[in-house]
Every structure is written in structure tokens, then in C-alpha cells.
């Protein structure tokens, strides 16, 4: 009796497992069928230790054949304060004020199969904040007197960010590969700048047809400090007094220590 029950139970389990498996496959297939575009970043977590000097991130996936693609990597939007240089008395360049940038991502990288201006209408670019022009309309810059001034200072801001490898636009670097089933594979590998601060980054992929975004997929990259880097950064913020004393203590003992070493070595006299 007991044995029969056991056999029955195990058969039931097997049937359930098969059903679950079938369900998963069906679900997976059906999502593929409705939304062809997929995106996957090879690194969903980048760790910063003492030897971190940036990383490489690749994004790949599938889309329907013949679509143009736009890949956008951004940090969350925020508030940034910058110093503004200007001429004083006609000859001297110096900081003349501060500019506040609102709704502005700290990192903005854009890769596309062709120039975004050629494949997307102005409205679509504005809707998805694709391209520097669209970003310029999206951000707020204060204080600026008029639109021309805003454009000028946003342009300077982009130059500054590009110089620190945090802003970038590039086209023609996405590798495309047609598959026999009417889909295409895409792949891009990009340098992840060490200047990108710890935080959550979003990789958005847009499939473009006839000047419009027809599909969209997302993936995420998280940048985190680990180990001693994390401990030190945390301490500098959370136990500032201890951190200050520690910094001074180390500096004093290093200075004194080297002094002693030089005396012993008879380096001077």
C-alpha cells in the first residue's frame, strides 16, 4: 500500500514538472513572438576595487531584420552644478558664476546603426531623448537668458562631459548579422569609462522603422564599489571625524617614519 502511494506521488511530481517546463517554454516563446527585440549587457554588475581602470561592456540581442537600432546608455537624471567661465574686463578669463543643470544624466552614451538625425524624426528623438539636440531640449539650464544661451552652455557642458569620457555619440559601430529566420543579431562592445561613478545605469535599445521607434528593450548595468574601496569611501562620508584623524595620523607617522629612516641610513650628515 505504502509503495503504491509513493509511486503515485512520484508520478504526480513528474507530471507537474513536465507541465511547469512546458509552460515556461510556451511563455518564453510567446514573449519572443510579441516583442522580438531583446537586449543583454554582458556585465550587469561592474565592481570597483583598487585596481579598477574602467571595464568593457558589450550589448547584444535580436531584432526583426531590416530595423535600424539605437543603443542608449544613461545614468539616472539629476541635478548638476557647474562653474561658468567668462571674460572679465575684456581680457581675463575666470569663473563668473554657477550654472545649474536639471534633469541631466551624469553619463549619456549613444550608439546607432546610422546617424540618428537620418533615421528618426525630431519628435521621436525628443520623445525618447535620443541625441544631444533632444537632450538639450530635455534639460533645464539656469540661469540662462534665452534659448540661444541655453544651447551655448549645454554645448559647453557636453564638451566638458566628453572630455571626461562620460558623454559620447557614435554611429556605424553596431555589428549586425542576418539570421535565416528573418531576424538579425546585433552586437556592440564599448569601453566603460572609469570616470562613471558607482550607481545604476540603464541600457535602452530602440528598434527603428520608417523614422519611428517601433520596439524598445532594456537592460541594466550596476556599478558598485567593493572591499576596501567601499570601506574607505563609506568611512569618508559616514565617520568623517575618524577618517580625518586617520588621514592626519597616517601622514604624521609616514613623515616621521621616513625622517627616521633617512637619519639611520645616514643620508644627510
Amino acid at each position, binding site marked *: 500500500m505504502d509503495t503504491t502511494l509513493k509511486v503515485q506521488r512520484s508520478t504526480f511530481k513528474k507530471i507537474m514538472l513536465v507541465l511547469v517546463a512546458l509552460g515556461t517554454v510556451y511563455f518564453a516563446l510567446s514573449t519572443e513572438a510579441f516583442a522580438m527585440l531583446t537586449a543583454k549587457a554582458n556585465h550587469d554588475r561592474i565592481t*570597483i*576595487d*583598487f*585596481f*579598477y*581602470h574602467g571595464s568593457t561592456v558589450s550589448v547584444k540581442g535580436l531584432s526583426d531584420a531590416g530595423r535600424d537600432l539605437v543603443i542608449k546608455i544613461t545614468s539616472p537624471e539629476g541635478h548638476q552644478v*557647474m*562653474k*561658468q*567661465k*567668462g571674460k572679465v574686463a575684456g*581680457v*581675463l*578669463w*575666470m*569663473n*563668473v*558664476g*554657477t*550654472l545649474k543643470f536639471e534633469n541631466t544624466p551624469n553619463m549619456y552614451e549613444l550608439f546607432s546603426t546610422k546617424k540618428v538625425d537620418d533615421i528618426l524624426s525630431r519628435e521621436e528623438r525628443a520623445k525618447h531623448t535620443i541625441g544631444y539636440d533632444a537632450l538639450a531640449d530635455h534639460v533645464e539650464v539656469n540661469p540662462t537668458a534665452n534659448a540661444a544661451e541655453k544651447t551655448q*552652455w549645454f554645448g*559647453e557642458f557636453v*564638451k*566638458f562631459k566628453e572630455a*571626461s569620457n562620460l558623454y559620447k555619440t557614435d554611429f556605424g559601430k553596431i555589428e549586425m548579422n542576418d539570421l535565416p529566420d528573418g531576424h538579425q543579431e546585433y552586437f556592440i562592445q564599448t569601453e566603460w569609462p*572609469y*570616470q562613471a*561613478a*558607482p550607481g545604476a545605469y540603464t541600457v535602452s535599445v530602440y528598434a527603428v522603422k520608417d523614422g519611428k521607434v517601433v520596439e524598445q528593450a532594456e537592460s541594466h548595468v550596476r556599478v558598485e*564599489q567593493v572591499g*576596501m*574601496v*567601499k570601506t*574607505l*569611501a563609506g568611512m*569618508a*562620508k559616514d565617520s*568623517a*571625524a575618524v*577618517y*580625518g*584623524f*586617520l*588621514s*592626519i595620523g*597616517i*601622514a*604624521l607617522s*609616514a*613623515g*616621521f*617614519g*621616513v*625622517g*627616521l629612516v*633617512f*637619519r639611520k641610513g645616514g*643620508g*644627510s*650628515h
Partner: protein
Amino acid sequence: MYLYLPVALTSINILIPVGLGLAVGLLSGLFGVGGGFLLTPLLIMFGIPSTVAAATDSNQIVAASTSGTYAHWKVGNVDFKMGLYLLVGGFVGGIIGVQAIKLLHAMGNADFVIKMTYVLMLGIVGVYMFIESIQSMKKSKSAVVEVREEKESAVGRFLKTLPLQTRFEKSGVTHSALVPIVLGAFVGILAAIMGVGGGFLMVPVMVYMLRMPMHVVVGTSLFQILFTCIEVTFLQAYTNHSVDFLLAVLLLVGSTVGAQIGTVFGRKLKGEQLKVLLAVIVLIVTVKIVFELTLTPSLLISQAGGH
């Protein structure tokens, strides 16, 4: 080899901070200046955010000046009494200077005043030191002592009438206690406005106004800088969270050794030669700042913070 800096949030080739530290430590040991006026802009040039560069620099100077003060103290070149009076004045001056900066910021033209103070002070000090030391080098063969005494009587008559006259044994000078306190305060005010330790101002003040011998000046200046920078480091770490411990360690590896080498070299050079060298460096920095002010910058925007 690259290392990631946890507070600066950037990665740097370790040879850069160690090399910069060595160079600045050398100047520190030679001339008794902290080197903040040189190192901070260099760090910014290598991608360190300006707030972190300024704060970490003062942490590094603590190490370099400890190393230098120790080396100078061992050979009897630190006038502790004079150093303490200057410190008292510097402390008071620092407080006044910080208030002055707040006022200037409120008036909206702080940067202009700071930059102009830089150019004027560095320019005047550099030119004066240069001319004076070249002249005394020429005369030194015949009558150094005479020249000294002549000048002293011209400047010193008024100072001698002040109360609280006291003897500074190590430096071999007699001054009213008020003199180093007031001069220390003056340098403290300027240092706070300019955001630097003030060594390059303190050295000429001690040489030309307090009439101290150059070797004692260097040791005493380092002693005074040590305390100023301990205070600044703590305040920066506590209020701005901008001291990068790792960057400071890399810098001090170079600067502590550099300070020792500088001290050894300094003892081989004559006081006048040291003054000419320092004058030349100060003038080069002045010219560099003037260029920065007049040439169109490549980026019209920069990170807020720092000085």
C-alpha cells in the same frame, strides 16, 4: 599601474602622484614651502576633482612637512618660539580670511579677487626676492654683514619701539612679540583667501621682515605649515568629505622622501642661492597664472567646488 581612488572616484597611474609628490617634497625641503600652490593645479590637470585635489593636498603636506620639520629640527634649524608666535597670528588670520571669503562670495566676485591676489602677491614677492638676492649675491664677497645692518636699521627702527620685545635665540633676532603675531595674521588672511598654506608668503616675511637667517626660516616655516595643514585636513575631511586617503598616501610616498632630499640639498646651497631659486619658481608660477587668465580656455565649464 593604475589605482582607483575611492573619494576622487577616478583611476590614476600611481607614477603620477608619486612623481608629483617627490617634486613637491623636494621644494618643501629646500625652501620651506608646502607646495600647495603648485600641486593642487597639477592634480586637477590629471583629472582629480578640484575639491578633492585641494583637500588631499593639505593631507599630503602634513606628511611632507613632518618629514621636513624633523630633518631640520635634527640639524637645529627650527625656531619653535618664533613658529608658535606666527602660528597664533596665522590662526587668527585664518578665521578672518574665511569670513572675508564668505563676504566676497556673497558679493559675487570672489574669484576675481582671489586670482588677482595670487598674481599680485606672487609677482611682488617673486620680483622682490629675485632682485634682492641677486644684489646681495654680487655684494656678498665684500660686505654681507654691512648690507644687512644697513637695511635692518631702515626697517627696524619702528619695530624696536613696540612693546613686548623678546629675544628669539635660534634665529638670533630680537622683536616685539606683536611683530610675528601680526605678520602671521596677515599671511593667514591671504592664505585663507587664496586657499593655500601660505608657505611661499611666510618665507619672504621671515627673511625680509623678521630678518631671520634663511636656514632657520625653512625649518620654522615647515613647522608652522605642519600645524596649519593638520587643521585644514581635518576641516576638509569633516565638513567636505573631500580628502582622498589613498591619493594622499601615494603623494606622501614621494613627498616625504623628496623633503629629505631637499633638506640635504638645501644645506649644500647658500642662503642667497636658495632665495634666487625660490624667486624663479614663484615667478614661473605667476607667469603660468597670467597665461591661464588671458588665454581662452578649452572648456568654458568646470566642476563646481574647490578654489
